[in-house]
């Protein structure tokens, strides 16, 4: 078996639904979506106009599902979609789209463009036109268990390390715990302190929690590559783990697409509602804060700003909790222009950061973040997504801006009053 154009076309026919038909019928080529897309605003190249990224799918829709399109195709006025064309579109559908959803937020016709890009990726992946970088990540996620090839022993090593660093035991496979914590490979590999922060916060709030040995990885490369079958395999592991451990809530880590994959797509992928709740760690912290379970001391004294991860804020509806948390531990929290719902993407979401050949474009697109930071001139940047964090650091490094980037969860954990000291 292998990927073919026929497969891609068939999958596209399968995923084209009434919203997509309505969206294509509503587009008037006003070009406003381009103004919302950082890949256009920072390059000025009109080929990055979001709606244009869907051109092959639009034609296929027209040819397959409208009478006029069929007639046009018969008359040779509308060319059939070819494999070469899809190959050409790879750059537009993957490299220059982070699924950030700003286009969907501005379209005056109401078109949910990012919804269509997500569906278009189904056809792209089924026809073998996904970029090698994300393909490899997806393969590793399925065969090894994590897109970065992180295996359980590595997690255990980090656990042990964190236990020593923080002096708090890390529970694993505890049945009946209230929370099951997921990690992203990014956190396991690059930011082990995240796990320590969770341990500290849970202990502080007096909640029971656990890691799961069969489902520790939340990153869903299936969602990024846009393949529901593969995404389903990955989500199923988590569902199976959560149900085996009978947890009430599964906490999605500081990773944007992991959250979207589990919170919004998960139930639809496995075809039934979850028996547990899914929350992003920031939502959990926000809830703790509201219930006065978090007692903090001291404040960060430098000027901080918050970078909203797209999947958490615009695509996930979590906008206020992170601000409440920032104000709890910071005296000088400033908002960037467009912060919150309309925040600009770091440029590396949706699998884009795994695409080697897209790096130059990514750095070019980063100019929009640079401008945002320059407006408010913070001393440090806080965010709540491990991938945003790395992409931001790389971008800042590239433009030689001396700005540390820190995780909100760790920052909150740092300010918690030690239980013994109370």
């Amino acid at each position, binding site marked *: 078996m292998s990927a073919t154009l026929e497969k891609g076309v068939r999958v596209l026919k399968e995923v084209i639904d009434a919203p997509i038909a309505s969206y294509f019928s509503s587009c008037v080529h006003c070009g406003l979506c381009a103004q919302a897309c950082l890949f256009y605003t920072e390059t000025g190249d009109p080929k990055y106009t979001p709606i244009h990224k869907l051109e092959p799918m639009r034609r296929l829709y027209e040819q397959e599902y409208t009478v006029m399109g069929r007639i046009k195709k018969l008359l040779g006025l509308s060319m059939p979609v070819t494999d070469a064309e899809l190959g050409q579109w790879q750059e537009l559908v993957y490299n220059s789209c982070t699924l950030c959803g700003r286009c969907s937020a501005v379209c005056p016709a109401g078109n949910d463009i990012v919804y269509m890009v997500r569906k278009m990726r189904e056809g792209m992946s089924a026809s073998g036109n996904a970029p090698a970088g994300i393909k490899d*990540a997806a393969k590793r996620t399925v065969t090894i268990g994590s897109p970065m090839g992180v295996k359980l022993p*590595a997690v255990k090593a980090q656990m042990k390390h964190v236990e*020593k660093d923080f002096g708090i035991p890390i529970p694993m496979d505890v049945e009946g715990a209230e929370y099951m914590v997921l990690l992203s490979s990014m956190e396991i*590999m*690059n930011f082990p302190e995240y796990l320590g922060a969770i341990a500290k916060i849970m202990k502080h709030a007096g909640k029971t929690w656990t890691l799961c040995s069969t489902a520790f990885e939340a990153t869903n490369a299936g969602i990024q590559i846009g393949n529901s079958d593969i995404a389903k395999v990955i989500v199923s592991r988590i569902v199976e783990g959560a149900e085996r451990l009978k947890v009430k809530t599964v906490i999605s880590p500081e*990773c944007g697409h992991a959250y979207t994959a589990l919170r919004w797509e998960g139930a639809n992928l496995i075809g039934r509602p979850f028996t547990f709740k899914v929350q992003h760690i920031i939502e959990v912290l926000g809830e703790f804060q509201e219930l006065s379970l978090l007692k903090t001391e001291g404040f960060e004294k430098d000027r901080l700003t918050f970078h909203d991860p797209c999947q958490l804020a615009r695509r996930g509806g979590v906008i206020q909790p992170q601000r409440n948390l920032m104000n709890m531990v910071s005296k000088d929290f400033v908002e960037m222009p467009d912060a919150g719902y309309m925040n600009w993407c770091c440029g590396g979401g949706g699998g884009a950061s*795994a695409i080697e050949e897209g790096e130059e474009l990514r750095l070019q697109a980063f100019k929009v973040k640079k401008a945002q930071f320059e407006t408010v001139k913070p001393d440090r940047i806080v965010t709540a997504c491990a991938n945003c964090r790395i992409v931001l650091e790389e971008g800042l490094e590239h433009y030689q801006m001396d700005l540390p980037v820190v995780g909100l969860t760790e920052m909150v954990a740092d300010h918690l009053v030690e239980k013994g000291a109370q």
Partner: protein
Amino acid sequence: MGIQNDKEFRAALAELAITRQRQVGANFVRQVLDLCSDVRVKAALLAAGRSDISDAELALVAQSARSARVASYTQCGKDTGWTAQAGHFVAKAVEACVRAAVAGDNVAWDAAMQARLARTCQTVADGMGTENNEAQAQYQILDAFLKT
């Protein structure tokens, strides 16, 4: 008998003055330095060991250490090379040694933790699992350092 566990280790480090913390941190890093090939890391390490270093110089090497760390990140979705990842943690450890610090910061402890992560990555890469004796080695380094 010297330091036996992390609790004592951490407390002992916390009592050191910041310059001394940097120096002992540098000693921890030196243990794992061969896991990293970045020249910026080596330069920063030398600076961390010096007692007469100025704040301006420190800021400069801190920046180059950070560049080394950022450059060695494993990106989301990219395959993890454990050897490369070990290098990343070495850079991170060095950065801890030279970063600007305020009272109450325990830069030596942070450096020690990152150095242990680097060692773990190396043993994983070598197929020896995650067990190693880096902690014990660090206890001895500290004991020796305290005696000087």
